[in-house]
């Protein structure tokens, strides 16, 4: 086998590896984007439910104006916050906490427990939270995969050349901690 043939084989192998690495990065970026779309839909669903919750609670616990105002404020702030997952994490977390605080009012106002629309909303919000949580886990794993590829050699060379960047996690910092610890 001539030196020329060896060079051709090596160059072909490198070219194939390059294309494979590029395609993986494209797939990973697409997975991150798709999984973010799922979170976005679930967050939008939560925003739809908040005004109904405020209305339902106002009927039985009008004295809790401060909590309700706080819920409306965090809802508006979260709805207005656009951009990356990192930017939305804080406001959406605040909204989750404010929602929980309002839902917890049923312990102080037993009338809420006999209010059918409140109970229905409570169930829907709990389900939506579960769906957000499931979507967040999947999204963060996709982000972890993409970021690992963007950082690791040799795929980082391909990533840098074609402008692939790390994506932001959404929500808790668990995945970030994992990545920092090198896993």
């Amino acid at each position, binding site marked *: 086998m001539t030196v020329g043939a060896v060079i051709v084989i090596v160059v072909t192998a490198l070219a194939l590896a390059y294309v494979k690495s590029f395609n993986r990065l494209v797939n990973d970026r697409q997975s991150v984007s798709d999984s973010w779309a799922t979170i976005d839909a679930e967050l939008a669903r939560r925003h739809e439910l908040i005004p109904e919750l405020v209305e339902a609670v106002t009927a039985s616990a009008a004295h809790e104006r401060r909590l309700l105002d706080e819920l409306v404020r965090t809802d508006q702030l979260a709805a207005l916050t656009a951009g990356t997952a990192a930017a939305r994490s804080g406001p959406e977390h605040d909204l989750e906490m404010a929602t929980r605080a309002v839902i917890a009012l049923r312990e102080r106002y037993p009338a809420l427990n006999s209010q059918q629309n409140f109970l229905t909303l409570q169930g829907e919000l709990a389900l939506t939270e*579960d*769906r957000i949580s499931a979507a967040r*886990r*999947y999204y*963060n*794993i996709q982000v972890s995969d993409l970021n690992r590829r963007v950082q690791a050699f040799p795929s980082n060379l391909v990533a840098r050349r074609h402008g692939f960047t790390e994506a932001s996690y959404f929500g808790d910092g*668990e995945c970030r901690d*994992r990545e920092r610890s090198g896993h």
Partner: protein
Amino acid sequence: MPTLALFAVVGAAALAFYAVNQRRHRARVARATALAAEHGFELDVGPKQPPPQKFDLFDLGRGKQVSFQLWRRGEQDSVFDYEFTTGSGKNSTVHRRTCALISLPFTAAHTKIGPEGFWSGVGRALGLRDIEVESDMFNSRYRVTSDDERFAVTLLDQPMIAWLLSAASGAGEIKFELLGPWLLCVADRMVIDRQFGYLDWAQAIRGHMPAVLTSLYPVR
């Protein structure tokens, strides 16, 4: 003459072996029947074909048969002995398992969860990845494959992972296969006395699975 004697001895040994096996089988049937009656279970001694669900386990090997199937009256969930043969000639191996087949309140993507084996561990160390979740300990102890990664990640939430990792769960050596509205739990063959508890244990797994699955993957 010596040849005839040899045949006679071999024949007698074969008959004795058959008789002992038959006696052992009858004793096992009697024991299973008594225990099933005691626990309020139905019993089908078999042998019969594996269930119609398209689990990978039921695709492996030949000579597949289900025996000693136990279930509670009016319930779909059951526990049974399952065996199949792989290889041929001197290299043939009979695999004996005890399986619990459990109905699920959602439609699962085809997913397998089992202990990390030697070769899959080597592959993982070399960077070949199956589905991974948020827990490094879980990833190192279990191997997960699925037709739908999103489903697998949704199934394996923190409480489910914690349960699988806890020694108290008893899940360490069990292989799980989910497909459609069914869960198959596969263990090494166990004595009939333990199978009733095994079915209860497998049924309790439903309680560890995230409730959100019923809304995201409703039964069709």
